[in-house]
């Protein structure tokens, strides 16, 4: 009970921290805390495999990607070069709409409460976290992933492949960058200096 509220406070606080920092590196740190707390929350919901991949993939892979990009683009501590703010007054309507939508969502949830979670019963399918072959365990998840959900699983592989190709196309050097003008036209073969000069007679 208290664990949930503790994690909830950490989640909300780290989320707000993430979106309010000037420097993206601090945001990454906030996001890391957020993800770790979320992983813990997953464990309380019997989703142990998801808790693990939340740490491994999100914290380990995706956040590292962010950090790499930040390192690539700037020193990582200062603000990015920013141009003029073209929508200076967007914050007020955005926050207002956000609050309204949030209010309606909470209102809708409150209309039909779900009630308490079903209790843990060690003898049933719902077992303790860490037990193999109970709901949410690695065994349970794996069986589902490779039997009934095999097609979506294969599709994820396809999505990742498309993403890889897309990234290479967008950020790779293969595409000429006209505004930077780094690629000077190569001299034609006839204009190139011969590698071996014929010895003078």
């Amino acid at each position: 009970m208290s664990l949930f509220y503790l994690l909830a406070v950490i989640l909300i606080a780290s989320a707000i921290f993430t979106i309010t920092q000037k420097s993206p590196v601090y945001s990454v740190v906030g996001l890391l805390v957020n993800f770790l707390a979320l992983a813990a929350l997953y464990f309380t919901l019997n989703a142990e495999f998801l808790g693990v991949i939340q740490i491994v993939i999100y914290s380990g892979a995706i956040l590292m990607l962010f950090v790499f990009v930040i390192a690539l683009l700037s020193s990582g501590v200062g603000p990015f070069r920013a141009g003029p703010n073209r929508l200076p007054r967007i914050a007020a309507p955005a926050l207002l709409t956000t609050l309204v939508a949030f209010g309606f969502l909470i209102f809708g949830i409150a209309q039909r409460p779900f009630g308490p979670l079903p209790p843990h019963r060690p003898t049933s399918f719902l077992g303790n976290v860490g037990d193999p072959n109970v709901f949410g365990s690695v065994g349970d998840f794996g069986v589902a992933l490779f039997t009934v959900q095999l097609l979506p699983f294969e599709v994820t592989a396809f999505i990742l492949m498309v993403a890889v190709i897309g990234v290479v196309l967008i950020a790779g050097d293969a595409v000429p960058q006209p505004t930077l003008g780094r690629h000077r036209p190569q001299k034609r073969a006839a204009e190139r200096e011969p590698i071996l000069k014929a010895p003078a007679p």
Partner: protein
Amino acid sequence: MSVDVTNYIALSAVMFFIGVAGVIVRRNPLIVLMAIELMFNAANLALVAFARVWVNNAGHIFVFLVVTVAAAEAAIGLAIVVAVFRRAENVDVDEVAGLHG
């Protein structure tokens, strides 16, 4: 010990709208991407909570797919940021307005 699922859903909603606010208000593309990750995770939290209510691991599989898509999205988004950074003077979501009417 047991917590009402409604609490999880409400927490998910709070996180989601924090992410929304971040997307709209912030101009740093990296932070915008991170706010999007927040929104993904809020949705994941709701999915996991629902899976727990109905003791059905289809929700877990769905979260797995969302994580995959989020990874792909982050990779492409960051690639775009890198590409924009190479061409444009400022790295700013307001800078990329070539499709204005």
